[in-house]
């Protein structure tokens, strides 16, 4: 009301600014009003922050076990989530385990996002036979189910944190590149790109201003949906013994070593997997919310 200017009897209401809220501001507004996405984000942030600040939380030593206190049940004095097969505190290891699990799950998607979107965008922009060759190579990688490809690569490279990240990055690059290629091809055929070219804009300017602005959103949303898969796969590799090596805490590896306790302490044995599940479902729900908020189809 303070903005209303009164001229005698005529009331002139100022017209709202033409640009209104920016695209990103409206995305954030929509996201904030999505209770499911916000709950998922809260879970993710809690796990991430706990993992980062684990040394300051007054937890036990994640590596020090006690032969006398092996496999204590949930709620045992001093062990709120029990203890594992070597007598190490489960709560501590679950929180510390988030460090490696998150890094190994998120890094491949980040790396693949950079490499894959660059490959896809450049290939689609150049077009012609270059695009065809790149897409045929990508088709070859799509001929492998992703779990099989991940296991084939890390099986051949050998166990280890870096090898596991490298394998998963290779698994995700073709998937992201294919999406990037598809949206870039759509965009480069739109009239405004043609208009920019006719008015003399250079290739790099067109890619930077007109193409990137329109394709990065959908590619980003797709990449976030891969984090959930990546978390499950990277912990799966550790579960098979192809990722993290003992005694480092990592959810997949913890789940594997606790398999021996399935009959004696079933609830404790299932805990690390519950962490993977919780993280993966939260990333999935948040990615779904982001997709809706950004109005990205498919």
């Amino acid at each position: 009301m303070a903005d209303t200017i009164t001229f005698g009897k005529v009331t002139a209401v100022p017209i709202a600014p033409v640009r209104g809220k920016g695209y990103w501001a409206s995305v954030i507004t929509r996201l904030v009003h999505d209770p499911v996405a916000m709950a998922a984000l809260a879970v993710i942030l809690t796990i991430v922050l706990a993992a980062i600040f684990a040394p300051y939380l007054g937890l036990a030593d994640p590596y020090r076990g006690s032969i006398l206190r092996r496999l204590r049940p949930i709620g045992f004095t001093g062990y709120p989530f029990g203890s594992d097969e070597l007598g190490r505190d489960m709560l501590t290891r679950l929180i510390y385990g988030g460090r490696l699990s998150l890094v190994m799950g998120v890094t491949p998607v980040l790396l693949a996002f950079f490499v894959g979107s660059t490959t896809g965008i450049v290939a689609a922009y150049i077009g012609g036979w270059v695009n065809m060759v790149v897409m045929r190579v990508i088709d070859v990688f799509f001929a492998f189910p992703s779990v099989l490809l991940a296991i084939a690569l890390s099986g051949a490279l050998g166990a280890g944190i870096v090898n596991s990240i490298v394998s998963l990055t290779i698994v995700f690059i073709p998937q992201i590149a294919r999406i990037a290629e598809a949206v870039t091809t759509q965009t480069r055929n739109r009239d405004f790109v043609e208009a920019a070219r006719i008015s003399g804009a250079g290739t790099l300017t067109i890619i930077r201003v007109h193409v990137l602005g329109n394709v990065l959103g959908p590619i980003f949303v797709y990449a976030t949906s891969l984090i959930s898969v990546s978390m499950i796969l990277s912990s799966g590799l550790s579960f098979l013994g192809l990722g993290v090596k003992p005694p480092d805490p990592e959810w997949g590896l913890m789940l594997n070593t606790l398999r021996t306790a399935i009959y004696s302490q079933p609830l404790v044995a299932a805990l690390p997997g519950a962490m993977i599940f919780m993280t993966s479902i939260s990333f999935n729900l948040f990615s779904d919310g982001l997709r809706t908020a950004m109005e990205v189809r498919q």
Partner: protein
Amino acid sequence: MLLYAVKRLLYVLPVALGVSIVCFLLVHLAPGDPLTSILPIDATAQQQQEMRIAYGFDKPLPLQYGIWLWKVLHGDLGRSIATGRPVAIEVANAVGNSLILASIATLIGFGFGTFFGFVAGYFRNSLLDRLASVISILGVSVPNYWLGMVMVIVFSALLGWLPSTGAGPNGSAHWRPDLEHLRFILLPALTMSAIPMGIISRTVRALVADILDQDFVQALRAKGMREGAVFRHVVRNAAPTALAVMGLQLGYLLGGSILIETVFAWPGTGFLLNTAIFQRDLPLLQGTILVLAFFFVALNLIVDVLQSALDPRIQRG
């Protein structure tokens, strides 16, 4: 129809060739010499050279690939380093068990998935729809190796109803369709069906919702057709895509069964891969992955052609 099948086949051949190149290179991706795992540490340079010649590793890579591909095309996948038996026989023994497990899991997933999908698509935004979408999100987010452990905890450790590992009584390595063996396949198959169930219910929900919104459905209802008959039309329109998704899921399950097979000690290809990886048996690893990937490529082709036979509008260019 036939023309389309031929066209797809011509398109798949270069992909299959690419797959064989990737599988061939897997052995050379391994750090160090491919022979380090079988040679004794104190082998002399001359012995190493002899081995290299015996395995053909002294020839240039493209020539090695040519020789390897020629053998593969004749059904020779090399010999397993660990057992010394032909890889082709090892894989053939295991692939049957994996195929049975993956097929049963796909059928279970398809059954529940289409049911939830139809209910959700018909009663959009209802409580049932929400429930179905929660189930499908759970299905695609759950780490299935953990779900397997939970199943073992509940049905074997706590209730004692079903066996937790193996394909049959007394460590039987071959699954047979009888009641005793059925008890062994139930847990791994149910576990494995979680992902296809989630994906199929999501797909079917979207399909049904889309079909119900089309004009022809309104026309059918307007001319007084009973709801049961309208339902038949919806099913007919949703079937090609739903069946295609199911076919592809079978391929994904077969290729990704290693984690579940490890949890349940199922004597399939996943178990074989596990052995190959930890004994650094590269020919076995290479052969198993090649067979699984070729199977996936062939399945894709079959699904594609069948789908276009069911619904000629769907043809990929």
